[in-house]
């Protein structure tokens, strides 16, 4: 019921997002196919794996990750926390369900949308590539959506949690964007000045997509597990918050 409500309230934005995802994926893939990249001829059989690799790296690793981040922030800030801002939390929390139900169902609805969006962008990109190259790597198409979904879920969870903390969509979104900037810049600075590698969600999405696209398969199982735990930590923290919240 709440899952349906979340979907019903968000469906127009979601469909617009899917159309944008598919169109952009198609557009960038076509550019890659037509230009072929440096020293790659899309019509030559021997160059096809390289074409796949470069397209996946560019379109999914860069564009897909960026778009997912934007969508995750927007979606996360328009979820449960907004109920407190609008005043609908009083109605919601007076329905006979334990509070964890609202937190996890609301979160799951967003993650499902993230997953569908990830499959659409991956499908549009690699589907176009397969159609042009005449070569299909089915498992890559499916597997490339995984890191984008996990990364998207973590960023979505961050915005989801902070919007509940702030009880304001605008503030929750602002805090999330701020933290994302720090999260992106800090590892780069630490790497630059102290030569210490700090994991970053953007790096995870980019590298994982690239390694799948190149056919080397999912690497760093620990990273998958780690970012999955991060993604799950946010709704858990939100639950602790909502259990104590007053409407």
């Amino acid at each position: 019921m709440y899952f349906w409500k979340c979907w019903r309230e968000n469906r127009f934005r979601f469909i617009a997002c899917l159309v944008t995802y598919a169109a952009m994926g198609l557009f960038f893939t076509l550019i890659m196919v037509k230009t072929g990249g440096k020293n790659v001829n899309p019509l030559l059989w021997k160059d096809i794996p390289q074409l796949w690799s470069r397209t996946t790296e560019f379109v999914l690793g860069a564009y897909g990750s960026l778009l997912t981040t934007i969508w995750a922030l927007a979606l996360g800030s328009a979820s449960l926390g907004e109920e407190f801002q609008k005043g609908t939390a009083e109605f919601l929390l007076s329905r006979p369900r334990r509070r964890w139900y609202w937190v996890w169902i609301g979160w799951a609805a967003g993650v499902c949308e993230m997953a569908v969006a990830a499959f659409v962008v991956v499908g549009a990109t690699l589907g176009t590539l397969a159609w042009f190259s005449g070569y299909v790597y089915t498992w890559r198409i499916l597997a490339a959506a995984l890191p984008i979904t996990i990364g998207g879920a973590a960023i979505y969870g961050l915005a989801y949690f902070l919007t509940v903390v702030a009880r304001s969509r605008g503030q929750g979104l602002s805090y999330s964007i701020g933290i994302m900037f720090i999260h992106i810049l800090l590892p780069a600075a630490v790497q630059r000045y102290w030569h210490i590698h700090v994991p970053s969600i953007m790096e995870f999405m980019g590298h994982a997509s690239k390694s799948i696209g190149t056919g080397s398969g999912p690497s760093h199982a620990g990273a998958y597990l780690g970012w999955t735990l991060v993604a799950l930590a946010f709704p858990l923290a939100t639950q602790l918050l909502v259990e104590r919240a007053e409407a």
Partner: protein
Amino acid sequence: MSELAIQTDKLVKAYSELKAVDELSLNVPRAAIYGFLGRNGAGKTSTLKMLLGLARPTAGGGTVLGFPLGPGQVAILERTAYVSETKVLYGTLTARELVRFTRGFYPRWSDDAVAKYARSFEIPMDRPFAKLSLGNRTKVCLLLALAQKADLLILDEPASGLDPVAVDEFQRVLVEDLASDGRTVLISSHQLADMERVAELVGVIDHGKLLLEARLDDIKSQYRLITAAGAALPHAKTADMVSVSASGDFCKYVLRQNAEAFAAGLRNQGATVTEVSPLGLREIFLELVRKEESCTSGNVGAKTASVSSPVL
């Protein structure tokens, strides 16, 4: 099973220094319509939120339908329908979609009741909630509450925004459909005339304190306002007294019983009793909560209750 649908014991809700609810002990019998009356900011909504687990009591406790108060008390929420003061629902959803959303939470949900009340309240079921007038929003909230077939209805300012025809229909529903069906209704309001028509019992709250809890019939038949003038009038409350207020040489007493004996006692002390009059709900409410310059209130807990004065 307790005969009380709602019972609170010295319930307190404090926001920093401010006590919104101050040692409130409420007793709402089952199968009754209880009017919970008070001015704006008296503590009505805070009390209702604590009953539903939407707010955490600072101190005290209580039970609703036999279940202890507490956040997320699902057993209470399953049996209680609530209409909030704000009447804010999801703006993009139509009334029909709100029914679809709400229906699944309640095993006793009645689609027949939805059809019946949608027709009698003339609710536009296919218009988004955000595009409805205030009155129609209120009607949608009432529809969702009534269709739950709950044992207890907690309605916070349920008639706000309703036109007189809709108010009349709502009152008919309260009396004919709910009270006759043995369900308990707690209505928070400051619409005294409306409450006088439907409520069997009333509780008056001000500054978080319960000033009065009584049956309306008792108020009409036994409660009296006595106005007296004199030099040494008693200011302290007695057991029969609901309130006492003084202004200059005049004192006003609201008594729940034995008014004639009290008036006779005043006369024996040399006071001039200018008025002994029955009280309606409006009069007693105003006497209890009105604050005037140089007027002292004898309500329990009020500072002026300790004014030293001769006792009868």
